[in-house]
């Protein structure tokens, strides 16, 4: 049995050629960094698109330099056409949700740290792991390529609702080739993530080190494991949905197009499809997807906070139970995106109820974090600041979710900026803060150098203020009736809101510029940062028991044996420190644990 597992991982020496070391690498650490790099590129592309959108929203006739070169049809003279605004909006969301929020917290950090935190040498199927990255990369390239066809990318939103997304080029620019490329890119992306789950789950279940029982796994491992189980079911539904959408375009089927539909003055030659079918298939994926985006961040934040509080959370098991309930319930709530879609109103009740129930585990998690923080002597580092920021953002975004969960309220605020504010707080900001927290926490381990704490704290505070300035006003805008996905505001009740949009635009540009501090910190520290010790944060999990960065086989030939649970902080260790590493054979001293409370 042991030999089989040994065979499952690589037992030949480290690769020698540049290509095998850095390009087509089967080393999970390199794959994790590649995913991180992909996420970094995608986030700047997505942010750039959002700047253009926000500039247009604030100043509709603004000429944006360079845009006419990128798309002479979409932005003649540098002024966005309404369709081009929708195209940029679609691509902004698609890049962000798929290539940033799924890639960075799950694929990037998960690939790098899951094997190390369970004490394994690598994932069990390194070649499949390599394929998972390159398939995701191909999906990214397909999506980017849609900018460069004459009609531009799809404009139907990242949700690609039928029939707009299914009828083809007659519906508008980008709806022909652009939409097909979008669907193809997403289908390929799904395959890439499924290949990832194929590695994550066996690693967690079968590759754990001796002594590492399930109840000794760090919360990050639990989070990645739960996320990969969710990804398994969610991406497997989106992929056939995208294939059916492509078929509607290319082959002439009518899965999603009803009969007698008139588009741009022409009756469409399709019959009897169901537009609601697309929404059901999409949101069955879509809701678990947003939990796929947030659960790894929850794991990271829990792990980071425990390290810097120097004591465990109030209850490890309840945190896991809450994450599991979130995952389980996420499949039952998807219809809350469809309250006004025309589906049976009784269904709205059926979906609203679990949506309200799902606020319970979310609230439990927040209360555990806050309760654990109470009277702790939290060490303030950039990583812990971003973890605190995550909690703040998650509360803010979550509270607006309570309102959206109820159909009578949702009917009023659906498709307004209220919703945009809600999901930007929980996804765009909270999950991103989780990524930042993980970055500042794990950068020393990944690259062997420390990031600048001074720049990090500056990055945190400016970003924290900036994102509140951008997204808090959105709740007000939504309640005032500001509809989303509009490229300009010409009604008198929305025209009065333009100054708020301009404020949000300025805040967005400012916050975007602040991210350059992070980028500078990242690049500068990578090459010229202070050398990092093995365990700069005095953390207990297995990744800190190896060198920074870890050697090729993670532990230098050693097979770690785990003796403790992952959060032995606030204890009296034999060496005089207040923590005991998971693989330290020393025993815990019970009395000393009282001193921290």
């Amino acid at each position, binding site marked *: *049995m*042991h030999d*089989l597992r040994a*065979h*499952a991982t690589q037992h030949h020496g480290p690769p020698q050629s540049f290509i095998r070391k850095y390009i087509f690498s089967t080393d999970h650490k390199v794959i994790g960094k590649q995913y991180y790099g992909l996420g970094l590129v995608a986030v700047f592309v997505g942010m750039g698109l959002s700047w253009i959108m926000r500039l247009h929203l604030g100043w509709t006739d603004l000429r944006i330099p360079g845009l006419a070169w990128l798309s002479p049809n979409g932005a003649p003279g540098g002024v966005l056409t309404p369709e081009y605004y929708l195209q940029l909006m679609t691509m902004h969301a698609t890049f962000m949700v798929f290539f940033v929020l799924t890639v960075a917290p799950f694929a990037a950090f998960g690939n790098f740290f899951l094997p190390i935190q369970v004490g394994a040498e690598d994932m*069990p199927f390194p070649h499949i792991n390599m394929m998972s990255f390159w398939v995701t990369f191909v999906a990214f390239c397909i999506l980017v390529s849609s900018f460069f066809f004459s009609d531009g990318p799809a404009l139907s939103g990242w949700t690609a609702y039928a029939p707009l997304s299914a009828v083809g080029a007659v519906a508008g620019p980008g709806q022909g080739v652009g939409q097909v490329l979008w669907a193809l890119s997403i289908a390929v992306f799904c395959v890439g993530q*499924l290949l990832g*789950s*194929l590695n994550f789950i*066996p*690693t967690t*279940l*079968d*590759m*754990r*080190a*001796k*002594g*590492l*029982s*399930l*109840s000794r796994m760090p919360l990050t491992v639990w989070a990645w494991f739960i996320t990969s189980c969710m990804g*398994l*079911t969610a991406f*497997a*539904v989106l*992929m*056939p949905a995208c*294939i*059916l959408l492509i*078929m509607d375009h290319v082959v002439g*089927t009518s*899965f999603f197009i*009803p009969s007698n539909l008139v588009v741009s003055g022409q009756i469409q030659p399709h*019959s*009897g*499809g*169901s537009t609601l*079918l697309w929404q059901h298939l999409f949101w*069955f994926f879509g809701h678990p997807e947003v939990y796929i985006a947030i659960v790894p961040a929850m794991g990271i934040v829990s792990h980071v906070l*425990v390290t810097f509080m120097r*004591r*465990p*959370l109030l*209850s*490890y*098991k309840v945190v896991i139970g809450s994450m599991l309930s979130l995952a389980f319930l996420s499949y039952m709530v998807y219809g809350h995106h469809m309250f006004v879609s025309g589906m049976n109103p009784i269904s709205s009740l059926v979906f609203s109820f679990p949506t309200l129930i799902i606020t319970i585990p979310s609230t439990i998690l927040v209360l555990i974090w806050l309760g654990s923080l109470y009277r702790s002597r939290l060490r303030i580092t950039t990583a812990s600041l971003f973890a605190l920021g995550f909690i703040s953002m998650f509360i803010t975004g979550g509270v607006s979710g309570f309102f959206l969960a109820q159909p009578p309220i949702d009917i009023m605020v659906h498709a307004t900026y209220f919703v945009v504010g809600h999901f930007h707080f929980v996804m765009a900001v909270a999950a991103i803060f989780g990524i930042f927290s993980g970055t500042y926490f794990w950068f020393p381990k990944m690259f062997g150098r420390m990031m600048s704490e001074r720049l990090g704290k500056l990055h945190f505070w400016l970003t924290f203020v900036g994102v509140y300035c951008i997204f808090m006003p959105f709740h007000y805008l939504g309640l005032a009736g500001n509809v989303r996905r509009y490229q300009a505001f010409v009604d008198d009740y929305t025209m009065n809101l333009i100054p708020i949009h301009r404020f949000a635009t300025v805040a967005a540009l400012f916050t975007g510029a602040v991210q350059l501090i992070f980028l500078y910190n990242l690049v500068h520290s990578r090459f010229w940062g202070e050398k990092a010790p093995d365990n700069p944060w005095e953390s207990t999990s297995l990744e800190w028991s190896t060198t920074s960065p870890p050697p090729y086989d993670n532990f230098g030939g050693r097979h770690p*044996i*785990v*003796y*403790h*649970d992952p959060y*032995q902080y*606030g204890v009296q260790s034999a060496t005089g420190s207040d923590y005991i590493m998971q693989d330290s*054979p020393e025993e*815990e001293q*019970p009395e000393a*644990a*009282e001193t921290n*409370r």
Partner: protein
Amino acid sequence: MGVIVEDRLTASYPPTARLTGGGGPTGLTPNGRRFLSLHENAPPPQSTAIWVGIATIVMMFAALTSAMVVRQGASTDWHHFDLPTILYFNTLILLGSSITLEMFVRAFKRHKSVPMGYGTAPALWLYITLALGLLFVIGQYVAWHQLNSEGLYLASNPSHSFFYVLTGAHVLHVLGGLGGIIYIIGKVHKVTLQSSTLGVATKYWHFMDLLWLYLLGLLWMKL
């Protein structure tokens, strides 16, 4: 404060459980304070991975099934047609290939000459499985051709579309399975086949069988 616990085998572990992160006894055999993990008893990762893969494929066909059910209910243009008879013959071929694969597995277990499970069983049963699998794929193609000649194309009616999509998706997965069988044949010739690898291929192939039986039933009911 509190009880100082000496015996970790019977008391709640760790003694400061309310302060530490949990991780109590897992029901595994303790060895003093060092618990043995699942490590020695864990299945090979291949067998977990194949179930992960099967779960994924099940979800995909579940999505297509629900799409079909919804689409049928969405309008009145559903054209019911008789399934080509060759499909039933293809079903027998596929079931036969599962039987022949199982014959190889038994021969492999009997011929295992080294503890690692490297067998020297002849690959004949594998060749038969491969041939039957290819025959199934050809038979499916014949079924499509037959429907084409009757005027039933991919886009001619939603019921036709689903027939082609479901059977086409299944055939693509079967082709993947055939690739796995070829890989196994290669391993047998080099005498490096492990039981875990064979287990993966076998589970996948039997799953293709079960999936086909499900699809046949679904198509028979709905089309």
